């Protein structure tokens, strides 16, 4: 998908204008027919812009880092463990947490569309839905990681999870060193969205001290 490729700005611009007009027209038609309530649309948008996003997942990861019994529950059956903190539902009905270790790095993709654990990560970024990521993650995972500036030791096994069913995957990254005794709130600041997809690593204490 050309996405937001600025090389083709003029081309995109005219096509997008037509799409914009059609979206507006369709919303009017559907509203006039009584099929949709625009106030419900506003609420759906607000939910995914303001309430549901990767900060949810960061809280889950930080709690797993801080609390070994929670970590065990999360790795055994993530859906109820995540629901304990209040996150559940659409595109997260069946969640599995994947533990990164020094020997194993997990990375999540959906080669067929854009499956992504919405309740904990929000809506997926454009790159996750794009052809470059979906095509290469399964064939050349280290090359994809290099696009994100991540290099893993040669001997680390890389496991790619292609989300081909309704199971949604959340990576539990390794807890950064130098964080002994940190509160869950402080630990959550180290958890990035990409570290929960497997295309990034958590921040280090130095990164957030800057």
């Amino acid at each position, binding site marked *: 998908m050309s996405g937001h490729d600025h090389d083709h700005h003029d081309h995109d611009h005219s096509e997008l204008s037509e799409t914009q007009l059609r979206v507006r027209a*369709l919303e009017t038609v559907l509203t006039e027919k*009584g099929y949709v309530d625009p106030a419900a649309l506003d609420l759906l948008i607000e*939910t995914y*812009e303001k309430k549901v996003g990767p900060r949810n997942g960061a809280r889950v990861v930080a709690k797993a880092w801080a609390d070994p019994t929670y970590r065990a529950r999360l790795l055994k059956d993530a859906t109820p463990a995540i629901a304990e903190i209040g996150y559940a539902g659409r595109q997260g009905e069946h969640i599995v947490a994947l533990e990164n270790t020094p020997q194993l790095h997990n990375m999540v993709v959906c080669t067929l569309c*854009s499956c992504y654990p919405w309740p904990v990560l929000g809506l997926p970024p454009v790159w996750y839905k794009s052809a470059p990521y979906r095509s290469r993650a399964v*064939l050349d995972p*280290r090359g994809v990681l290099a696009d994100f500036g991540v290099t893993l030791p040669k001997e680390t096994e890389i496991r790619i999870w292609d989300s*081909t069913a309704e199971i949604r995957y959340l990576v539990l990254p390794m807890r950064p060193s130098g964080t002994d005794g940190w509160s869950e709130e402080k630990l959550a600041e180290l958890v990035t969205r990409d570290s929960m997809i497997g295309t990034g690593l958590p921040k280090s204490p130095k990164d957030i001290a800057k």
Partner: protein
Amino acid sequence: MNGGQDLGGTHGHGPVKPELNEPVFHGEWEKRAFALTLAMGMPGGWNIDMSRFARENRPPGEYLSMTYYQIWFAALETMLKERGLVAEDEIAAGHSLHPPKPVKRVLSPGDVEKTLHRGGPTERETNTAAAFKPGDKVRAKNLNPPTHTRLPRYVRGHIGTIERIIGCHVFPDSNAMGAGENPQWLYTVRFDGHELWGDEGDPTSKVSVDAWEPYLELA
């Protein structure tokens, strides 16, 4: 279908380009297209597998040149028109020109939170036994239906290992065609990078897909 959506292992798409501080939506129309798609699910009467098929069922060149929300929106238009809920002359006019059809339920603002929280679980009760167990060697069948399927091309014909029995889940190949949920056992199947990609594969990589029982046979 062997369409433009089935991207695993294809070449030539270039590097991944993450956008720094990316907003949730790029422009107002993406927000509305997203929300319309979610809100029309119930009154439209379609399921998630029908939506996925409506998105992928287009010429690959077209699929690859559209942005993701353009694809979503095009699929929404298709499904509305197929069911006679909206006609092209109405979209062109920007107004309703024909009487509405009766619909099951309209999403009200008061229902948004609980509808999202409930989601659409796909696990179903079954009285059948799973045919495979963890550790079994299985081959992904060489299936090429022109209709919706969730078995990516890059694993077809290859041998993997059953890692986990996930449960019995709605079968998308049936559900997308309106042929019922037809729940089937679902497994996580792990493949070695070398098995999938030969010498081009990363020897330290393993790839898994979640595959329904009808996709698999004992190897």
